[in-house]
Each structure stands twice: as structure tokens, then as C-alpha cells.
């Protein structure tokens, strides 16, 4: 069930440079699962389109939802200025979410692909190894992952923390194996993770990103190339917002 409503801002803080944690009171959390996203609408009416933002944490008991996002333009800049008590239009939950599988899982996040892996790690039934990639030592959500994962491995582009290199470099360095891998991050990272999974014969889910308009599967703006014919248009174009954002790594062309 999708809801569009006015949410109330409960808290906002800057976790790292340009990375914000926004806590919203919204009924959307009643229906949300890890890996789904919400649309947040700018209050400035000249910015028409909603900003699709992944769900970082769902607190059904208190009716709260946490999103962690990067300021990437004027819309997210506006969100970053929201304060306690402010109201903001939201719609969701959108997309399919991660299936919860395996006795042992590796959750992999890169950059702003880190946040959605937190709620996933919280809800996965088995043992969780978290592998998180950042640009530098300006880390975020480290304590959270330390709490929920049996092991947290960090990779940084500049080598200031953990493995000097990519998340896949860190996975190789630690000879990681599992029943299932979940990944969210930039496309080159997803491609590398999918290759790693294929080598090790591990099932792998990736969460994709694309420019969106409607967020509900109507406008066909946010398609990604799929290996098989898609159910909607029968042309190898899956809708990231509706058929995804989570796909099996073998379903999509990375």
C-alpha cells in the first residue's frame, strides 16, 4: 500500500560533509520493507519532481522513518534545511525491496548506497558481514553497522580508513563468502560486486538508481536494461521504480 501524506520532521543532523540524516514521522513506515524508497517533494513549487530517497531505518513502534541522503542539488539542499516540526510531502513506500534470505549474508554499500543497507542488515535473519565504501575518512553510519553486523569492513578511495580501494578490493582481501550478497552503490561498483558474486557462485541482489519522475511505474522514465524481456513493455527495459530498485544481478545489464 502506497501513501502520499504530509510528514513531520522529528530530527535532522549532518552525519558527514553533505550527508544528512532526516527522521520523519510518517505512516509510510507501517508498510515499508528494507530496500524500498520514498519520494520526498520539495516545498518550492518550481521544483516539480519528487526526489527518490532510500529508506535507511524503519521504526514501526514509534512511526518513524529515517532517510540518509546526500545533498546533490537544489531539491536535496532544501531538504537539508528542514528542522524539527517542519512539514514535508512524502509518498511511499515505493519499489520492491530486498528479499530477506540466507544464513550468512554480505551487505555492500558504496557512498550514498550505504544507508539502505542498514535496515536490511537489521532485518536479515542470519549472520551479516557489512562492507562499506567511502571516499575518505568522513565516514557515516559506522556505529549503526557495528551494532547490527558481526563484522564491518571499510574501504576508502584514499586509503585513510580500512582497505585502500573499492569495496570489492576489501571483499577479496578478506576472502569473503556467504549465501547471498546485497549491494547498493554506483553502477561500476554494482558491476564489480556482481562479478565477484559470479566468481564465487553466490546469489547477488543489486539496488539500481536512475532519474525518475512518477516513482510508480507509469512514466517509463527510469528504466534499466534487463537481460530478459520485461513484463511491462516486453523490450528488456525494467522499471527501476516499480520492478526494482532491487534486482538479481543476473536480471540486469550492469
Amino acid at each position: 500500500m502506497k501513501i502520499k501524506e504530509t510528514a513531520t520532521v522529528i530530527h535532522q543532523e549532518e552525519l558527514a560533509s553533505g550527508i544528512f540524516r532526516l527522521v520523519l514521522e510518517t505512516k509510510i513506515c507501517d508498510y515499508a520493507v528494507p530496500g524500498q524508497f520514498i519520494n520526498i517533494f520539495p516545498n518550492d513549487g518550481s521544483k516539480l519532481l519528487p526526489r527518490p530517497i532510500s529508506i535507511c531505518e524503519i521504526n514501526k513502534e514509534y512511526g518513524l522513518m529515517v532517510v540518509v541522503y546526500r545533498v546533490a542539488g537544489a531539491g536535496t539542499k532544501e531538504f537539508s534545511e528542514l528542522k524539527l516540526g517542519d512539514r514535508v510531502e512524502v509518498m511511499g513506500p515505493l519499489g520492491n525491496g530486498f528479499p530477506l534470505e540466507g544464513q550468512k549474508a554480505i551487505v555492500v554499500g558504496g557512498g550514498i548506497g550505504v544507508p539502505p543497507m542498514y535496515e536490511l542488515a537489521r532485518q536479515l535473519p542470519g549472520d551479516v558481514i557489512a562492507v562499506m565504501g567511502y571516499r575518505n575518512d568522513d565516514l557515516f553510519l559506522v556505529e549503526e553497522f557495528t551494532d547490527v553486523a558481526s563484522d564491518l569492513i571499510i574501504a576508502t578511495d584514499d586509503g585513510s580508513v580500512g582497505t585502500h580501494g573499492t569495496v570489492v578490493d576489501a571483499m577479496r582481501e578478506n576472502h569473503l563468502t556467504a549465501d547471498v550478497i546485497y549491494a547498493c552503490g554506483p553502477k561500476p561498483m554494482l558491476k564489480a560486486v556482481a562479478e565477484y558474486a559470479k566468481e564465487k557462485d553466490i546469489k547477488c541482489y543489486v539496488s539500481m538508481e536512475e532519474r525518475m519522475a512518477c516513482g510508480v511505474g507509469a512514466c517509463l522514465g527510469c528504466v534499466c536494461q534487463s537481460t530478459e524481456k520485461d513484463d511491462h513493455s516486453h523490450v528488456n527495459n525494467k522499471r527501476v521504480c516499480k520492478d526494482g530498485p532491487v534486482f538479481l544481478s543476473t536480471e540486469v545489464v550492469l
Partner: protein
Amino acid sequence: MNTKVTIAGVEFQNPIMEASGTFGSGMEYSEFVDLNSLGAVVTKGVANVPWPGNPTPRIAEVRSGMLNAIGLQNPGVEVFCERDLKFLEQFENTKVLVNVCGHSAEEYIEVVERLANEPRVDMLEINISCPNVKEGGIAFGQDPKAVEEITRLVKSHAKQPIVMKLSPNVTDIKVMAKAAEAGGADAISLINTLTGMKIDVERQSFVLANKTGGMSGPAVHPIAVRMVYECANSVKIPIIGMGGISTWEDAIEMMLAGATAVSVGTANFYNPTATTDILAGMIDYLERKKINDINSIVGIVK
């Protein structure tokens, strides 16, 4: 109060439709809107075979508007009939306009003939104005001779009334409206999107993979009102007006300019209940103005 409007013998319970391509076939928005409360559902363009559309990014936001370059991705008319038309069967109060696209006259005809015996199809909207496909589409819509010819050809094969969807990317839209009328169109709809472009100044590259895209949204509304007004004063056939309608005032304005019915497009993306919100606002307006028949406001501003 009467909110019914009639176009080419087809009666709509109210003049609110949604614009092709912004609403799928209604399935995705049926979680938010009772499709049975709309005058009509106007489907996403459908071709003779599946079309993959353009590469991504297909979407860019601009001030008070957006650009799209979807490229008419669609599953083809067979899947459309089996799935989308079947889904629409349950909404008996709502009329169905099927938007038809093609690369060539033959492709339009193939779709029109396939739809001829589908009872759920009340009317055909012929898309000769998509700015995002290179062959066909807009190539038919920017030359009055081509508009007249394709209209005549489609009309001769169509069982349902035809609405020709006009492009605003022309020097004089009145000429195109007259050409459609001369070719035998039962109605015209306008405007399709305006060709635009956005460049990312940091990356120094085009935002859309297609370089150009169709601009829509509130920013284009005054242009649409002007064009509907011009066409209403040039042809006798009814007009379905669209272009940046996002409030009830916009919809009433479009009818005052000469539209018999109106379509809501981009507004669905930021307000999934835009269609029914606008309809409610229009009814309040008519009550406040003590207007008993919505038809009495059509084209009265001269």
C-alpha cells in the same frame, strides 16, 4: 449541475482526462485515484509492435517544468489489448482513449485496425507530435499536407472517432488544426510537449541521453492556453486542451479558451490525485458561479 461533455458523439461524465504518457493505462495510479470518476483514461502511446524507447537518462527537471525523452516505449498493441484494455473493462463510467503511435502510415493503420473491434476503445488519439522519435511521430505533425493526409488515411481505417494530437513545435498551430479538420478529424488535442534541452554545466554535457526532450509542466501552460484559443477560433471540431494543467483554475482557463475537455499530465507526477482534485475544484467553481452546465463556459472568452 451538468458536467457531461460530448465529443464526436462520445459522452464523457466530466471533462477531466489525463494526458497520454503520464498515467500508463491507469493501473499504476488506480491506487490513488478511482478511475471510474474520470471523464476518460487516455493511454500511453501504443504501436504495432513493442518499442524499446530511448536510452536513459530520459528525465530532467527544469524550472516549473520537466523534460522527457521516453521515446514511446510501449508493449505493442497485442499485449496492450490483452492486458491494459482488459484491466480497463472494470471502469464502466470512464471512457477510454487509446493513443496511437507509429513510424509510418502503415504502422498507424495496423494499430487502428487492430483496435477497431475492441469494445473498450471509445476513441483514438493519433500521436503525430511526439518530439522524441526521429521517424514518424512529429514528422507527420509539422507539415500541414502530411497532417491532412495521415488524418484522412487513419480516418478511413478507424472505426472509432479520431482525435489528432497536435504539436506546438510549429510556426502556426492554426494551420495544423485546419489541416486535421480538412482530413476528417473528429477532434483535436493539444498541446503535446515543446522541444527543449538542458545542459549540465558541471559535466558540460547534455542531461538527457537523447539531447533534447519534450517540455511539460506549469511553465508551458500559458502557451497551451494561447494555442487552444487560436485553434478554437479556427476550427469547428472540438478540442481537448492540455499543457501544464495543475490546478482547477488552469482547467477552467483552458475551457474558457475553447477546450471541451481537458487533460492533466505532468501534475500527476507530483500529485497522484491531481485529476480528481482538479475536478472537485472545477465543480466548486461552477457552483459558486451558479453555472448549471459546464458546456456553457467553453470558448466564451473571445
